């Protein structure tokens, strides 16, 4: 299994990966609370980016509504915990099927009716918005006034109930991100992965080559949605509060996909690098503006937008393909 995963990967890449993983595992020993929170955020976006990338980067289906799956995961686990005291890991067992089912429903409707491209993207926005307004009026999750989890005391870490110090959350999301990376690598090397790439490149050609495109697009959306819902569970237990206006909002969906696009769509490192660059950029801008004494709401976002603009104009394929060439660890074009 492991031998197959690393088959054909250059030594240099493996060495760098190992170094990166060790650095990430050791990081909490030297980083303060602030840096730790930033790194949790980076890994969180790297994880969701990886999950989203399965749909867009591998199978070529542009989803602009992934906030739906985050939200469903977050609300399912949080509501089970608040109402019945059911822990997040059991909650996850409920949340993943719910999100996967939602993904399957959207995928079934869209792919049956040959809704594709921009139309598919807007259909996914529509479902996320639908959920946002729906949850605003759902009394069971306290509607628009928000669902709150009892705030944890940092006296001891309870991994089973996900209550405790940020360091614990850091290792949870690090493990999830590493697992997502491995899953994506395994998927790309599997039969399904090759079918996805064929569908992404030319769906008609894939169909005429005998690939059941409907079936494999469904597989992509179900896996992607299920994986994304874990990020929601994590979000709920890390932040302890949920508002439909925040969780399901279109700007959340956009946030999710900026990382992989900036990093490099369809690559395994793209989502991680993109999350690092964008979160790093946002935090640097905050710090820089604070140091300069600029206190203008919006100033940070203007710079952020300009940086996005420059990246997409200069590097159409994203940062990772370019960086990989520089480092001499070019990922096989996938």
């Amino acid at each position, binding site marked *: 299994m492991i031998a197959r995963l690393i088959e054909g990967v250059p030594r240099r890449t493996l060495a760098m990966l190992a170094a990166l993983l060790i650095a990430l595992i050791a990081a909490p020993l030297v980083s303060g609370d602030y840096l730790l929170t930033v790194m949790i955020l980076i890994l969180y976006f790297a994880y969701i980016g990886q999950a989203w990338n399965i749909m867009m980067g591998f199978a070529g289906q542009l989803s602009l509504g992934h906030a739906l799956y985050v939200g469903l995961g977050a609300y399912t686990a949080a509501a089970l915990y608040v109402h019945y005291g059911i822990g997040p890991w059991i909650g996850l067992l409920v949340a993943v099927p719910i999100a996967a089912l939602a993904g399957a429903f959207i995928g079934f409707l869209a792919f049956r009716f040959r809704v594709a491209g921009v139309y598919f993207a807007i259909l996914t926005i529509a479902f996320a918005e639908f959920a946002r307004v729906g949850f605003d009026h759902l009394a069971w999750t306290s509607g628009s006034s928000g669902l709150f989890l009892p705030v944890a005391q940092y006296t001891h870490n309870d991994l089973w109930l996900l209550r405790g110090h940020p360091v614990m959350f850091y290792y949870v999301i690090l493990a999830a991100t590493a697992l997502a990376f491995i899953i994506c690598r395994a998927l790309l090397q599997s039969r399904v992965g090759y079918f996805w790439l064929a569908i992404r490149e030319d769906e008609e050609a894939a169909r005429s080559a005998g690939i059941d495109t409907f079936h494999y697009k469904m597989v992509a959306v179900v896996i992607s949605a299920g994986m994304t819902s874990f990020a929601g569970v994590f979000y709920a237990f890390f932040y302890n509060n949920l508002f439909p206006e925040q969780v399901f909002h*279109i700007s959340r969906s956009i946030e999710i996909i900026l990382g992989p696009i900036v990093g490099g769509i369809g690559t395994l490192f793209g989502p991680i690098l993109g999350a690092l660059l964008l979160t790093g950029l946002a935090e640097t801008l905050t710090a820089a503006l604070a140091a300069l004494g600029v206190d203008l709401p919006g100033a940070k976002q203007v710079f952020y937008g300009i940086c996005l603009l420059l990246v997409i104009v200069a590097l159409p394929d994203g940062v990772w393909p370019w960086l990989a060439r520089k480092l001499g660890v070019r990922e096989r074009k996938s």
Partner: protein
Amino acid sequence: MPAEVYLNVAVGGVLAGLVYGLMALGLSVIFGVVRVVNFAHGEMMTIAMYLAVVLFSAFHLDPLLMLVPISAVLFVFGYALQAGVINRFITRPEHSQFLLLVAIAIIMVNVLLIIFGPDAQNVQTSYSYDSFQIGALIVDATKLYAGCAAIVVAAALFAFFRYTTLGTAIRACADNYTGALVVGLDVHRLYALTFGLGAACVGAAGVMLVLIVDVTPALGPAYTLLAFVIVITGGLGSMPGALLGGVLIGFTEAMAGLLFTPSAKSMFAFAILVLVLLFRPQGIMGKRAA
């Protein structure tokens, strides 16, 4: 509730829907020709709305009189945007175009936020609270003016595309990109022109909308979404479809606000969108492309 209430709300919804339709018309024209989805559409509209607010508060210029000048400003803005940046992206994949326009939208929203702050602003004209009474029907003057102006602007745009050489040339680009290049059309310039026209449309819509709703910088993304819903409902790329979609969504939102709760009204707009996408993905008036 008496029947007149329903009638009044319905007519108000249809008139507001005409303005929505004009906004969506801009998006539809841009997509129909340039094949780029303008994710900064609502943000461009808020720029026009703020221009109207500033001109009114500084010089007491009536927004309806400023319709043409503000649209002209937006035209130049749209032309420059397409000629300067977006033209380089027309052959790039959709997600690349998407990121470009999202970046532009982020910049627009936050520049407006820096200049005007987060508070809602509006225009109080002398006729803000006027209304016309026709039998049992009471119509707000602002909505009536705005709806009529939307029809006039839309008609002018139809005429331009139908009867002028330039309009014909633009339609040729939309029909067949390679063919247009072969017969020697300057496609990039025509694209810039189209984006300018789309921006002028949404600018005109913004000027009228400022009579009906308060403007905040955060309004942009919400209206971008609304424009998508309308355009897909009516048929992406279809001009009459955009207007019809606007009226349908305006009517639905008004009725949903009356019959259920105003906060749930956008759910009904999205429900219509989902139904249309599933059973008639090309939209009500759209022609199915291959």
